[in-house]
């Protein structure tokens, strides 16, 4: 029997999902649903937009208005939905390749506009759907089917990228740290402006296997040991932080929001009458 949360927020008849055993995406999807619940939103007014890839299959399972679009374009579609009807809460679920490779341009420009979207990037460090090719977040030196001799690309730090492009809320959580991840998404939804939350996922099938990361459990344990809350990290030495990944809220500021400013233009032009 599904839990009350799943019953309420998921299309139960569409489950089980397609993700592999041990994949972190199911946990992150549940975190998004829990965050929407915590915000007390009317599900009829929530839109989930996704692109293409493992992460983007989440939209189909979630019981909201769901738009499963083309590869990389989720944020551009979401921009149209939000501007067309600013009363809707628009959440984008995307992956590392979808959001930062093929869709990288849309990501930075949506950050720049400060349009009120909440983008949750399920980052599994690999192209899973196509079978394990290296992505913009595959760590330098690691392997993918298209990096058989090791990846010589350097990887993106997604929250930093978003912050420098103008996002007014950025954060990073993990599939392991569930309460933290839920809170980060919840804060992102409540934030009036462009929010980006990176959720570090786990891909035991491709990324893990290619790079000898052990079992799924080993990979979650790795997250548990190596991902440090930014607040806690302030009290730690440089040595202690060597090789660690910081999580939590990364940046936040207030700036006029895009659709608010556009509605003001409509008022000035007399288009609201």
């Amino acid at each position, binding site marked *: 029997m599904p839990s009350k949360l799943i019953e309420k927020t998921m*299309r139960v008849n*569409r489950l089980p999902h397609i993700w592999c055993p041990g994949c972190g995406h199911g946990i992150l999807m549940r975190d998004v649903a829990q965050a929407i619940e915590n915000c007390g939103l009317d*599900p*009829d*007014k929530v*839109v989930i*937009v996704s692109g293409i890839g493992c992460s983007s299959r989440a*939209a*189909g399972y979630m*019981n*909201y*208005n*769901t*738009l*499963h*679009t*083309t590869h990389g*374009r989720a944020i*551009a*579609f*979401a*921009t*149209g*939905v*939000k*501007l*067309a*009807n600013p*009363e*809707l809460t628009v959440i984008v679920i995307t992956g590392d390749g979808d959001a930062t490779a093929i869709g990288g*341009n*849309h990501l930075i*420009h949506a950050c720049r506009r400060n349009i009120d979207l909440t983008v949750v990037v399920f980052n599994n460090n690999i192209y899973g759907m196509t079978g394990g090719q290296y992505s913009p977040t595959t760590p330098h030196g690691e392997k993918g089917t298209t990096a058989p001799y090791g990846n010589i690309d350097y990887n993106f730090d997604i929250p930093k990228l978003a912050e420098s492009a103008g996002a007014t809320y950025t954060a990073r959580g993990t599939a392991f740290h569930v309460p933290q991840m839920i809170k980060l998404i919840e804060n992102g939804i409540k934030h009036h402006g462009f929010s980006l939350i990176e959720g570090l996922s786990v891909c035991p099938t491709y990324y893990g296997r290619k790079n000898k990361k052990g079992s799924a459990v080993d990979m979650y344990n790795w997250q548990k040991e190596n991902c440090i809350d930014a607040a806690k990290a302030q009290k730690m030495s440089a040595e202690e932080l060597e090789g660690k990944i910081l999580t939590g809220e990364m940046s936040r500021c207030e700036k006029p929001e895009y659709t608010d400013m*556009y509605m003001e*233009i*409509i008022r*000035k*032009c*007399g*288009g*609201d009458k």
Partner: protein
Amino acid sequence: MATRFHLLQGNEACVEGAIAAGMKFYAGYPITPSTEIAERSAVRLPQVGGKFIQMEDEIAGIAAALGASVAGLKAMTATSGPGFSLKQENIGYASIAEIPIVIVDVQRAGPSTGLPTSPSQGDYMQSKWGTHGDHPVIVISPSSVQECYNLTVRCFNMAERFRVPVIFLMDEIVGHLREGCELIPPEELEINNRIEGNITGMTYAVSEGNYVPEFAAFGEGERYNVTGLFHDDTGFPTNDNTITRNQERRLMDKIRMRRDRIMQWEEKDCEDADVIIVCYGGTARSVMGAMEEASKMDFLKIGMFRPITVWPFPEKALEKLSKKCKHILVAEHNNGQMLLEVQRVVKDNCPVSFIGKIDGTTLTPDDILTKITEVY
């Protein structure tokens, strides 16, 4: 605007037509020679409570417009050759997800950057075959500023009625041409809206007497799924071969079965013509100029057959004419694209010749008359 008669550019008339049709959303990216469509939309839309957004690229332009359409607004994007290529993927998405949208392509001389400020009609085939996969196509092409107005309304009507992407295939000749245009107010026009209804989980089911699924905007309480994957009536992905086959057939049939209602063409002096010139869009102005010249001298009888709906191609009408006239000349600003369609239809009924031009200038009436004397 005090009177309804204005001297307008084709691009401007297109925007006015779109607004008369109920356009409430435009997203696009600047590209010559279509940019005036974005510029005028930016001015006009907020005045009527609509939204304009300049996106970061061509792909984002069509994507945002599709998002807005799903949220319930009539939406348009405009571009030119290279940008049209960039939009093709999402035209396929709109086809399978059945999202109404109007895509304007103001053709310019290409390939690539080509001659951005010069006329051509190099995208005729791209407008049908540009996106991937089999899909239904409606492409409409104007040959005057007045048609830029009236036919944009028709594009919206078709897009909304059939839930398809409709391509408005303009060219630099009409896009940048200024001439008189009557801005017919919406209440005097036929305006179609998408059929709205309660879909209650059966997002893509077609009810009795309808030929497209009813539509509910996001946010109205239906909470359905839209995907570019083949899907069943509920809107969720399926790998079932029968369902896939039926969905593909329905997508094609909704246009194919209604071709006769969709197709429009003009026949000018074709009745007793020796030579019929087949042309479309701005090229028709060269052809009509040639006809005007010919009428002043002792010349053959020339007629013009002008598809307005260039896809689906009005084949029966042309086939009939090809049995009566002695020669058909196809005139295009390319190396012969509609020519292939004309040859397919005419077969051996009469000889078919071609005149094209792609040097950045337009065919002159003299070019056409000279060609006729050469081939006939």
